[in-house]
């Protein structure tokens, strides 16, 4: 009899429990173990506050993100939302698979105040299609001890001229002593890393890919000058760097083979783990007639139409608002990838939850520079404040900038020809 009662109770209660919870699924592309753990942490915190919503994370490594997204869109098997970059969001937008998120942006902006430049890449045809969650600014990171040894000062260079001279001096002096340290770390591999570095140099001259109407304005005196400077600087980058991507350049910098490089601030975690504090940053040097500028990669979340069809939209919104709360956002930024993932709202940037993180604290000056850099940052193709030409997705996907640099550095093509080549290539994607 007792068994029967229990069974009866179970039968009536279980469906209620099952019906009452909404399960939402999201994809992200941050495969390293500690990043996965950080995601799980915010999920657990969220579920504690919202017992009626269950959240599931699924890891799709960056390399597979595009194929999987397209396949899922075609087959109608998309998750409810996914973490993303401007290029991927544009792809999803063009494939007609996501919904506008203006209301969420508005709510978050009034609550926490977005750094306006971070919204630019997600504004397409007057609407927002991605909610920026964190951002990745490039700064000039350097090893103070190497600067002191070869330049006699810990003061980093502030202008292009100073940068070039410093890079040259370090390379030459150290090789005289028989232990070559390269003044600068630049890459010329066929990959996104190269594009990010080149663009940071371009941003110092305010290079714009498109005008406000979306016309191509890439082949300009500024671009030529920036590429020329990249080429000059490259003389003091390790000879093997022509095939590098992020992993190799980070390893070489950590090994003390490189003195300075335009890069993200993420290496501080590795240095912190080894109790090495010989690492600092400065706003990317710019020419005297140039501007403060650097690449910035805002990461967003876009919501798939399938979330609306399944009635998950409210739960998704709740989750997004939740992860932008400064204390939670600090987990996604300071804890997940300190120095590399940076808050995109003023409230989160000023929050003590961010600054109290032990790693952020240990490299406080560096992180102040990085936060400052969010104000000067732009991203290729979105310089005018919104997505004016969607061909930028293909242009970036094809590694056009990286190929241009390879032509200059590896193939010894003239700068004028290489830039012209790149512009023609870009045009071919605009047809």
């Amino acid at each position, binding site marked *: 009899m007792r068994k029967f009662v229990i069974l009866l109770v179970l039968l009536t209660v279980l469906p209620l429990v099952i019906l009452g919870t909404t399960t939402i699924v999201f994809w992200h592309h941050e*495969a390293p173990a500690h990043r996965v753990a950080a995601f799980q942490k915010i999920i657990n915190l969220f579920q504690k506050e919202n017992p009626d919503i269950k959240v599931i994370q699924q890891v799709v490594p960056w390399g597979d993100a595009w*194929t999987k997204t397209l*396949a899922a869109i075609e*087959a109608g098997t998309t998750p409810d939302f996914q973490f993303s970059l401007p290029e991927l969001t544009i792809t999803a937008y063009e494939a007609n698979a996501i919904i506008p998120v203006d209301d969420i942006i508005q709510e978050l902006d009034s609550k926490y105040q977005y750094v306006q430049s971070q919204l630019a890449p997600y504004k397409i045809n007057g609407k927002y299609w991605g909610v920026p969650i964190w951002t990745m600014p490039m700064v000039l990171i350097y090893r103070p001890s190497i600067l002191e040894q070869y330049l006699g000062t810990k003061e980093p260079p502030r202008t292009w001229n100073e940068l070039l001279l410093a890079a040259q001096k370090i390379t030459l002096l150290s090789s005289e002593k028989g232990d070559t340290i390269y003044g600068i770390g630049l890459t010329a591999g066929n990959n996104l890393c190269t594009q990010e570095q080149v663009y940071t140099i371009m941003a110092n001259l305010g290079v714009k890919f498109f005008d406000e109407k979306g016309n191509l304005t890439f082949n300009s005196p500024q671009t030529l000058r920036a590429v020329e400077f990249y080429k000059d600087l490259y003389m003091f980058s390790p000879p093997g760097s022509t095939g590098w991507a992020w992993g190799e350049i980070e390893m070489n910098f950590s090994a003390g083979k490189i003195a300075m490089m335009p890069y993200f601030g993420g290496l501080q975690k590795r240095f912190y783990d080894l109790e*090495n504090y010989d690492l600092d940053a400065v706003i990317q040097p710019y020419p005297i007639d140039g501007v403060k500028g650097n690449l910035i990669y805002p990461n967003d979340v876009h919501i798939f139409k399938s979330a609306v069809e399944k009635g998950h939209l409210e739960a998704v919104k709740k989750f997004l608002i939740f992860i932008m709360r400064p204390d939670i956002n600090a987990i996604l930024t300071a804890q997940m990838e300190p120095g590399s993932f940076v808050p995109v709202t003023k409230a989160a940037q000023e929050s003590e939850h961010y600054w109290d993180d032990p790693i952020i604290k240990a490299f406080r000056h560096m992180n102040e520079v990085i936060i400052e850099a969010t104000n000067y940052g732009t991203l290729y193709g979105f310089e005018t404040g919104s997505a004016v030409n969607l061909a930028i997705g293909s242009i970036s996907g094809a590694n056009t900038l990286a190929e241009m640099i390879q032509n200059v550095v590896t193939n010894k093509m003239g700068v004028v020809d290489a830039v012209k080549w790149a512009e023609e290539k870009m045009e071919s994607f605009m047809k």
Partner: protein
Amino acid sequence: MTLKPSLFPREFTFKHYEFIFFTRYPSKDFPQNVVNSLIVGILASAFANFLAVIGAYGLSRYPFPGSDIFSRMLLIIYVLPGIPLLLPIYSLLARMRLTDNLIGLILVYVAINTPFAVWFLKSFFQAIPVELEEAAKVDGASSFRAFVSITLPMSLPGIVTTFMYVLVTTWGEYSLAQIIITSDWKKTVPLGLATYMTDQYIEWGPLLAATTLVVVPIIMLFLPFTKQFISGLSSGALKD
């Protein structure tokens, strides 16, 4: 103050093995990856072989006009470029509700590997004289019985060989698995390993530990059959 390159370990440690066995994040469940891969590999292999034995037997015992060309065409399936087929294959599986499903993955592996297995096994059956089967039939056995008791045992080395071959090729397959499987607990070994190496981070310790562990189950499956494998390759099909 410089950090030395940490490409190679300086201390002997089991902590990475510990990590792999006992750290079970949703996306870092290596034992689960191995189990999934074994299930997929063994089932795909078994199923492909089952179909291949039937097909190859038919082709060798009941040749039809054009069956020679047919068996060569089977081989050509094996040379098709896989990349542009990824999306169509995925949408096909989606229509059958088999995406993010190990059965879907097995099905695709079987489809891709069976043609090769048929081609390979066919010559094994051809090498076994029909007379032996005929003799058994004279003694009153059915065709099926004759096949099971005479031909099958004699072609066992060939079957073992194709089995191992399909097992190893599916074991390391990435592109198709990547697009078909999404849930972390359904991921196969290559997908699991891929999460240890992203563009920025190579988690060397766990990666190398896991790689060692990847080799072990296969070697263990392989070793008892090495003899069969080699004799399978040297008899029948490849013997001149």
